[in-house]
């Protein structure tokens, strides 16, 4: 049974150490430079086995989350005082990093948020000061950025309309810089629901101008959400925000998020044809806002009537169908447009089209070209994403559900299937470009054994100093 049989281990009793040892032993025989095929199989077995063990012990979720919420120390050089005594240097002891959470900072933060929560709930004034205080706590205790973010996220979601409950840009950047993203995510979410296009655009500018500083995975998630919102409201698809998200997202997730962004753009364009004033309604439906209007309301009925008269591509249908009340979805399905008409194909176009998740003109199940490990891995990824989403967002609200069905496993993230042909040998690579090289003919040896190059006084070189 893959992968255990490849490693000759008993799955019930194998530990991580055993897996590593078994892999190392087999590796001596199946060396990457001598047997690439065998090595690939072995390596796939090794990583699959490790994953299984990590899933079993539940450590992977926490580890991934802690990595996800990066635990590098803050970048400020103002804290450079080395206060440790010099003794460790002689003993070559490296300082332990995982110091237990200092109780004081946690309790400080919790208390401050309780106070703010109570104030918001009872409609007191002076919220702005409390918010400033809470921001200050973040600056002082950047190692508690996760906790802070969760609490802030919670408050913003529940009291989103309170005018004083806003974060300064610097605080958002600080949170992202230190590996958090929950509060920033909540801000973006709120702007999204309120159709605050100006707010979204200025956030976009803020992120982009600080992108070096906030290069973290949390930023990837926040930026992806921002890009979705912008795509929907401002129909801005090729934005730098999407690039920022792409650069910072984990490779396993970035395709997913890019698709969300595309779908939002598609929806936006589609809805341009809708009666005005419905855009907000649709947005609420897409985001799964618990306070969204039902389909029975005036907007809902208008939307339904319009849908039934509009013509849809399969792409749009896919996105919308499970938002529509069930009894109407059958009729809705019939409205989905026939396959894209044949164009007047010009041969030799340079375009090619990646498989899209929407049904193609000649629909056919798209089978992943993989070995058994992939469905497992994908399921793992799926579970992990869901868990992470739940952990991030907290209890009630669903995160951006504007892509109701996750794409079918057509993401060939890894293809373990061996190549059909034997391992390819490098083919001769021909290059046409002429090159002025040194004419070695001129490097003559004189009788004394010295070398001469005819000096050319007129040649003043293009000295390519990298020192600019």
């Amino acid at each position, binding site marked *: 049974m893959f992968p255990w049989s490849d490693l000759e281990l008993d799955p019930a009793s194998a530990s991580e150490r055993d897996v590593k040892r078994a*892999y*190392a032993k087999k590796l001596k025989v199946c060396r*990457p430079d001598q047997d690439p095929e065998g090595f690939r199989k072995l390596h796939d077995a090794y990583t699959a086995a490790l994953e299984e063990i990590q899933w079993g012990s539940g450590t992977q979720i926490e*580890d*991934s989350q802690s*990595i996800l919420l990066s*635990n*590098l120390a803050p970048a400020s*050089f103002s*804290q450079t005082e*080395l206060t440790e005594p010099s003794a460790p*240097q002689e003993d070559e*002891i*490296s*300082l*332990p*990093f995982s110091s237990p959470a200092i109780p004081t900072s946690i309790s400080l933060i919790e208390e401050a948020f309780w106070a703010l929560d109570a104030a918001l709930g009872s409609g007191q004034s002076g919220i702005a000061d409390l918010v400033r205080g809470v921001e200050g706590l973040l600056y002082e205790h950047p190692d508690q950025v996760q906790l802070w973010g969760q609490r802030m996220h919670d408050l913003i979601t529940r009291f989103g309309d309170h005018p004083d409950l806003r974060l300064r840009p610097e605080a958002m950047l600080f949170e992202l810089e230190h590996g958090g993203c929950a509060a920033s995510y909540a801000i973006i979410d709120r702007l999204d629901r309120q159709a605050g296009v100006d707010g979204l655009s200025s956030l976009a500018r803020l992120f982009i101008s600080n992108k070096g500083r906030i*290069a973290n*995975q949390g930023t990837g998630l926040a930026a992806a959400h921002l890009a979705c919102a912008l795509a929907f409201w401002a129909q801005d*698809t090729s934005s730098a925000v999407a690039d920022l998200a792409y650069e910072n997202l*984990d*490779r396993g997730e970035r395709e997913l998020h890019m698709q969300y962004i*595309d779908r939002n753009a*598609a929806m936006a364009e589609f809805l341009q044809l809708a009666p005005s004033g419905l855009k907000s309604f649709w947005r609420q439906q897409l985001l799964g806002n618990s306070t969204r209007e039902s389909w029975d309301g005036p907007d809902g009925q208008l939307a339904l009537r319009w849908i039934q008269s509009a013509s849809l591509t399969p792409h749009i249908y896919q996105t919308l169908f499970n938002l529509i009340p069930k009894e109407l979805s059958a009729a809705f399905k019939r409205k989905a447009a026939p396959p*894209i008409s044949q*164009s007047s*194909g010009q*041969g030799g*176009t340079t*375009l*090619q*089209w*990646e498989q*899209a998740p929407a049904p193609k003109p000649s629909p056919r199940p798209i089978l992943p070209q993989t070995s058994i490990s992939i469905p497992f891995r994908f399921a793992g990824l799926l579970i992990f994403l869901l868990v992470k989403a739940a952990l991030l967002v907290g209890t009630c609200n669903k995160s951006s559900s504007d892509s109701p069905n996750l794409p079918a496993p057509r993401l*060939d993230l890894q*293809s373990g299937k061996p*190549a059909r042909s034997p391992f*390819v040998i490098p083919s001769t*690579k*021909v*290059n*046409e470009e002429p*090159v002025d*090289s040194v004419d*070695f*003919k*001129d*490097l003559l*040896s004189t009788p004394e054994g*010295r070398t*001469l*190059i005819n*000096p050319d006084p007129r*040649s003043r070189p*293009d*000295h*390519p*100093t*990298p*020192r600019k």
Partner: protein
Amino acid sequence: MIGIDLGTTNSLVAVFEKGGPRILANELGEELTPSVIAASEDGGLLVGRAAKDRLILDPKSGVACFKRDMGTSARYSFGGKEWNPVTCSALILSEMKRIAEMNLGTEVTHVVITVPAYFHDQQRQATIEAANIAGLSVDRIINEPTAAALAYGYRNPDQETRILVFDLGGGTFDVTLLEIFDGVVEVKSSAGESRLGGEDYTDALCQWIEARHGWKPEASQTGNWRQRVEVAKRMLAVHEVASVSLDQRLVEISRNDLRDATAALTARLRPVVSRCLRDGDTSASEIDDVLLVGGASRMTIVQDFIHEQLKRITRIRIDPDRVVALGAAVQAGLSANDDAVSDIVLTDVCPHTLGVETTKEVGFGKHEPGYFSPIIDRNTTVPASRSRLFHTLHPQQDRVQLQIFQGEARLTTENKKIGQIQIDGLRHQPGQKRPGEFDVRFTYDMNGILEVEVTNLSSGLKKRLIVEQRPGSLTKKEIDEALARLQPLKLHPRDLLPNRARLERANRVYAELIGPAREHLTAVVDPFEAALESQDPTLIKQTAAVLDSFLRGFFEHEGETQPDSDPS
């Protein structure tokens, strides 16, 4: 078999013998050979130390740091000839070959060469070409951080450790995360910047000093000035304060000044470390050890950075300038199946994401090209082979021009194109099983070279990549010609190297001095040159000794130690 570290600033050659790696020195007893080529005043060709001195004196007479231009179509001209990075590297490699042969007494033909982990396909090809021109057959290209890990761990390869190799060299910055266990050295992830290194720190310090004192060196003195600043920078690794002479006075620079001057550069280090840890699924606390590589990692700035970001105090265990060459020799020993080194298997990763350009459906039936579809993600263990299915946009479309890119950005305009391949016969025919579909398979081998194979699924025809664009590379014909010409060439007759070096050094010093000191120097150099002419060995030796002691005195006065070793 030997190992060569072809560095941006210095190159080294080492061999594995008697159970351990050993670096080989040239006739001057130096283990580090500056990676510099220059043309001397009388038209001769200089390599190494002599070239570096010449370059300081006349920055237009040669070239340094050409490693940064590998894989590009950069050209340099000096000495009346046109050069490119590949031919320059070839000259350095042939010099290293000569040093090895001199030490070992036998011909050397096989070599392991190191490259930065971040080097892409073209840069690696260029390195292999340079070696071929120099008459060397490349057994293996290994990444510098992996070589460092080998040097560190080859004696205890069974002990389980996770190490982070922090390599800040003259021109490049790499961070690599490795795991060593049971005789396996496994690279988990790697990240870097190919244009960030010690040289940039020196430049920043030069600019800072010039701005602070409102001063600029004269055109003829820029080389010397930069060298002085470089020395000061190195001094700051061991002293709190260093001084630099500026217009007849001495100006002090403290460690804090260096830090201020280079803060922007140090800020670029952090995202690289962060990405490496993230891709490797490891947190800072899980690292057992940090290995420093590269002369620039001696700077206290680096030590402070590592202390803050990774919460540990590092100690330099193996000389950062030499560790890569030592590791290359260990690999040479492994490749030659030397019994003294226990079997270690290396696995490495590809540092860049590789993929193709695709078109997406965007919005309502609209299509937009220019999107990057990854096929092999960065930090995938190599050798790796991945494939993906694509299909044509329209049923009538017959041909596809597949553009191959490397990089991390979402749009291909921001990634680096490394080749293209054309597939025909994709038009939909009735009765076809899989019309318009094709499978693209990327295979990335251990040396970091990419192969592309495309299969037309409806016809079953396969096509392998023929690279159509590779800037900076030579045609096979040119390579053969260069090979033929270089073989019998004796660039540096043995007895010439030390003397050449002396003369160039004397020239450089002459430019720094004025008045009576110059006359004194002349009085010492002239007899030496006369001795060279006469070719009388005793006379040469005597006059050389006098010249040497003069030069030594000069450098001690300047605070410069032996130029190629670092204060440590």
